[in-house]
């Protein structure tokens, strides 16, 4: 993975299947800044082990930002448990590629602030193109 930035890891990306690896790969292809993100996959792990894994990745890297894929997902549940009582870290659930692209370019901001900013960018990045609602399909 190439590193187009000057900083080390700034966030964890965790989710179902190969979601995290895929998103981080896409970020790296587009920006060369994939090294800012630590992908975490959790196949076959119970809730307790998912929490241990994400916690250990945070401790090893010192990152304070976790991106997860789904509000109801096991990684989100684990992250919320990890962040309970922690006031200097943030969880962004429902992450998409535009969110991460914004995040890796916001190096001038503290990572937690960059994550909040990127979440807003990701939220408005979804667009619908094509037939208006209610149009009968052939």
């Amino acid at each position, binding site marked *: 993975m190439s590193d187009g930035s000057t900083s080390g890891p700034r966030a964890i990306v965790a989710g*179902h299947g190969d979601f995290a690896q895929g998103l981080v790969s896409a970020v790296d292809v587009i920006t060369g800044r994939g090294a800012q993100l630590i992908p975490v996959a959790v196949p076959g792990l119970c*809730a307790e*082990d998912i929490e241990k894994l994400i916690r250990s990745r945070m401790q090893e890297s010192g990152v304070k930002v976790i991106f997860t894929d*789904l509000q109801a997902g096991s990684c989100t549940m684990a992250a919320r448990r990890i962040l309970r009582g922690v006031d200097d870290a943030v969880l962004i659930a429902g992450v998409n590629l535009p969110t991460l692209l914004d995040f890796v370019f916001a190096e001038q901001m503290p990572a937690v602030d960059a994550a909040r900013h990127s979440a807003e960018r990701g939220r408005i990045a979804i667009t619908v193109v094509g037939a208006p609602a209610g149009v009968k399909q052939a």
Partner: protein
Amino acid sequence: MTLVLHRIDDRLIHGQVVVGWAQPLDVRFIVLVDDEVATSEWEQELYRMGVPPNMDVYFLTVAKAIDELPRYRADVRHGILLTGDIGTMRQLVDAGGISSINLGGIHHRAGRTQRLRYVFLNDQEESALRDLATRGVAVSAQDVPGARPIPLDDLLHGVAS
């Protein structure tokens, strides 16, 4: 309608349950039976935040579930009964009214042997499942609706893998 799925899943409420099963089965409520969660407001809030606004979650102890399950079975909506372990589900089976069990996720822990990608069992758990099957309960493993259900016999005899 009734409880359309009786699932054992140690992750309790997560993506496979809320999205994978609940959407195709038009599930509108989950009965989560777990003595620990039923006594923790924080845990309950954690799980509530994971479900869509049109879905209710009821948190019950085993004792309360045994009393109240008939009421949930009579609910006009579709619901899922969810436990985090085999022992809890077994107690509910003992109380009657459960004819099938879905093994949705029993993950790795010390002493357990892998049976499927998402099912690991120790000897006691295997015995408990065999006992349920002997009593006429249809036990099968199936993590998501699109997967093939794997009967307990196949699971324990390695036919599934």
